[in-house]
């Protein structure tokens, strides 16, 4: 497979080109461009309604774009009004989408399955892995997120933080190349946020490629390689966290950060 290389030889994993998205008459994204490199952790922040979650959901086609092109690991998975970017075959698109994992704000665990069943469902029925192997794999992933004692618990018996960790294990079990986190801690009680962030932090240390839409500023500061600030349907700033948080010149971003930090107290 021919990989897209950049000048400094870093591999582009996801390329979003001129993305337009609207819901009915409401424009949510207007010409967004974004490259995500392998091994990178990107924090996406910004006021609500700025299109953060939509941007994320466009990457794995949960939302279909109105214009633009999206490329995952060299495969163009979606292209609208962009003749220079021909969409790959259905099979290739499916394979590339399979390389993305996602973690939702509301967990979306399957309530009629135990934690372990949640994790092994897709490996068995999508990847067609043998059941015993899948169980071993599932247990490994649950161990990885610190839930060795919850294999057989139904989601209703788990706390929000535990649910979200099962959801992360479920995504990891498909061995994705990139995981998309859609506000993974927004539905959690404050005291449960830490355990989920710790798991994501651990993944960051393992150099898992991740895009995290979040409202946790300190977390964004601590783990991300790049902070992307969205406002008014587009990316307004894209810089390393140090620069972003400490030397912020942009008045709107400054105001936003001040508001977020004062809310904390």
């Amino acid at each position, binding site marked *: 497979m021919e990989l897209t290389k950049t000048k400094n030889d870093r591999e582009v994993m996801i390329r979003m080109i001129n993305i337009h998205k609207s819901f009915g008459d409401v424009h949510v994204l207007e010409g967004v461009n974004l490259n995500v490199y392998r091994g990178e952790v990107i924090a996406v922040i910004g006021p609500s309604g700025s299109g953060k979650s939509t941007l994320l959901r466009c990457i794995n086609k*949960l939302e279909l774009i109105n214009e633009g092109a999206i490329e995952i690991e060299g495969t163009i998975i979606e292209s609208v009004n962009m003749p220079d970017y021909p969409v790959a075959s259905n099979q290739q698109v499916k394979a590339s989408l399979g390389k993305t994992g996602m973690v939702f704000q509301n967990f979306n665990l399957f309530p009629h399955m135990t934690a372990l069943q949640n994790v092994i469902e897709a490996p068995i029925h999508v990847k067609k892995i043998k059941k015993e192997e899948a169980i071993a794999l599932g247990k490994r992933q649950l161990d990885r997120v610190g839930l060795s004692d919850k294999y057989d618990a*139904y989601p209703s018996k788990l706390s929000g933080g535990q649910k979200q960790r099962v959801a992360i294990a479920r995504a990891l079990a498909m061995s994705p190349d990139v995981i998309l986190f859609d506000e993974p801690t927004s539905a959690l009680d404050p005291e449960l946020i830490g355990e989920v962030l710790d798991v994501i932090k651990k993944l960051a240390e393992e150099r898992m490629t991740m895009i995290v839409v979040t409202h946790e500023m300190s977390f964004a500061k601590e783990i991300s390689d790049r902070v992307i600030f969205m406002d008014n349907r587009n990316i307004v700033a894209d810089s390393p966290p140090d620069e972003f948080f400490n030397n912020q010149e942009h008045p709107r971003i400054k105001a936003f950060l001040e508001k977020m930090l004062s809310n904390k107290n």
Partner: protein
Amino acid sequence: MALLDYVTTILPQMMIGLGTTLEMYFASLILVLPLGVIFAILKLMGPKPVRWILNVYTWAWRGTPLLLQLFIVIYGFPVIGINLPKFLAAAGVFCLNMSAYVTEIMRAAIGSVDKGQYEACKVLGMSYPQTMLRVIIPQSFRIALPPTCNEAINLIKDTALVSVINLMDVTRTAVIIANRDFRIVSYIIAFIIFLLLTSFMVKVFAYLEKKATAYD
């Protein structure tokens, strides 16, 4: 005749009637679940003509009285040259009637499953049939269980309608005995039989619902 002696004399006849009632009940019930589930799925994702036919079916069967449906099949069909055995015709009417209700119950249950469940399946790469069969429908069964149990209890009461078309069920037997002996004891026994049946079913279904929602 003393009450107890009288009850002993008529009880065997009543039991034969009960046999007919139960036969009618199970003959009607047996196909309801598979039909209801299949119809609901077809109504949601079948080809357009099939969906259209099913819409008319549930609308017409739920919008008209069961007794009218029974009369059309028992008295109307022979007039236009269709002669069905009475028992089978009645069971068919009950089955199609309850299936129409269960179809709508299942459809509503499938529709009430959270959108996030579909999204989770999609990001895990599951196909549409996998999503429906492994994730959505199992969840909707649990949502549909209480109203479906309710329909199953209604059905046992509805079978009493066959007394109108002269099938010898509990109710018809009670009427005939009462008219013969000028006593209402047979009615009381019929009441007791139905109360026992429905109360028993309520208990069984409550147990079933408790088991089915074990994961909640």
